[in-house]
């Protein structure tokens, strides 16, 4: 042990150089950490984009099935008009009106399919079995997709609020992610299973 110390003594660096090396090491470590965090953030933004695309697809699918049912003549005229109106509004809504329009479609679906007999009537019609199945799937998947989207948004927001991210502007110009808030409660007659 003693010999080791003696041998290392002559190569001791001047204090200034040693300090500089330590500063350099610290800077590289901080740089790597920030680059890793930026990578995390990038991944989260990609996840939000994918989740948002999936949510859009599910919402569109739901509105399409609703519109198909509304124009099929299986439902009574009043229900048809209510459903058609809501489905049409949901598909055409501007981005800032989307949450309201989709919530209204949920309410319309709940009103029209409040009664299990209505669902039975749809199933009994020719091709109705497939339509009922598609609608059941759609009203089940919209809440799923929305939950996954909002979960990604929450994770990204938590990271973006962090000091290091704000201080070093790691998020760049990506807009602050917003959750998609809507009423997505499915009609009970179509969602008879464990929650």
């Amino acid at each position: 042990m003693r010999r080791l110390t003696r041998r290392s003594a002559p190569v001791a660096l001047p204090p200034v150089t040693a300090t500089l090396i330590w500063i350099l090491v610290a800077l590289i470590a901080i740089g790597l950490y920030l680059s890793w965090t930026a990578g995390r953030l990038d991944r989260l933004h990609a996840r939000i984009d994918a989740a948002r695309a999936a949510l859009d697809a599910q919402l569109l699918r739901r509105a399409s099935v609703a519109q198909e049912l509304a124009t099929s003549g299986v439902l009574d005229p009043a229900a048809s008009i209510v459903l058609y109106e809501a489905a049409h509004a949901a598909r055409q809504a501007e981005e800032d009106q989307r949450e309201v329009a989709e919530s209204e479609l949920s309410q319309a679906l709940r009103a029209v399919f409040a009664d299990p007999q209505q669902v039975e009537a749809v199933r009994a019609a020719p091709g109705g079995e497939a339509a009922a199945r598609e609608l059941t799937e759609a009203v089940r998947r919209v809440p799923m997709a929305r939950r996954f989207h909002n979960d990604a948004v929450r994770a990204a927001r938590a990271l973006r609020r962090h000091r290091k991210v704000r201080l070093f502007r790691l998020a760049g110009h990506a807009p602050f992610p917003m959750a998609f808030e809507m009423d997505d409660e499915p009609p009970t007659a179509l969602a008879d299973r464990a929650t």
Partner: protein
Amino acid sequence: MRIGIVCPYSWDVPGGVQFHIRDLAEYFIRLGHEVSVLAPADDDTPLPPYVVSAGRAVPVPYNGSVARLNFGFLSAARVRRWLHDGAFDVIHIHEPASPSLGLLACWAAQGPIVATFHTSNPRSRAMIAAYSILQAALEKISARIAVSEYARRTLVEHLGGDAVVIPNGVDVDFFAEAEPNPDWQSEGEGGTIGFIGRIDEPRKGLPVLMRALPRILAERPQTRLLVAGRGDEEEAVASLPSELRSRVEFLGMVSDADKARFLRSIDLYVAPNTGGESFGIILVEAMSAGAPVLASDLDAFAQVLDQGAAGELFANEDADALAAAAVRLLGDPARRAELRKRGSAHVRRFDWSTVGADILSVYETVTDGAAAVAADERTTGLRARLGLARD
């Protein structure tokens, strides 16, 4: 669809998560999907063709019992190779927060990742301590599934975010169509009480049932208690007066087929578990077989039993309450018949046809608008960051 499933616990050791993954994989294969399961297993254990071994698991105490887990350099390399060879559309990781293959796969993969959280340990200090490390891995998960509302609540409390609730699946008809075994049916008036679970694990609650048994036998001396499960039988009956010990019968480990026949034969299934349960698959199996269920009022059990509508609940760890309820139910065939009927209707939502379709919906939701799973080159460290990694 090419589906990769990651099992965190040893394939050769029977357990709830392993059975769930086995049934899920076989359900998807029947539907024509390509499934590969990555699970810890000894290299010489025979595995089903769809299981890939991730190496031997090490026994470690975790979450109140001894779990066999995988970690370390070798396992991580196997996870990467599996991800690379599989070219999956989606991977489904079970128990991603446990320090095993799930977490390794989370680190190593990118793309659509679905995760199921099975445990709901309300005071997992390890989870809180490792929060920031976990968070970086868990935020890659595109869709989280919790097995019960209770598990979801724990998840939200501990890790933030949200999850959809999809219960564990059971092959309801397998249990409903099993042939009762006369040996396990009641002789005359007494009735038989059934218990399935590890005998030597206090968490499973056999000691509570043993404390209640003298009172049950005092009221109904003809009653028999049938116990199926591993453990020391001598020790289990040590607290009983010796003249009552003959009323307890130990069947040891039973096969799946015998378990179904067992549940078809008994007059009352008792689940006295004292905690650590996030779902309660055995209750669903008992109801599928038409056995009336009496369970402790754990949150998870209350939910499976529809807050007491599909089976009766007693105050947790209260042997007197258990005894009173058991005596009342054994003496009331009409009530038992009602529970049978309600239970059988209630369990349909836990059948694989429903549960599997829901899980497939989750897969399809996350694969919409996302690329396939790949090994995550962004986390390979310095080499990748400096652009030296090979494609």
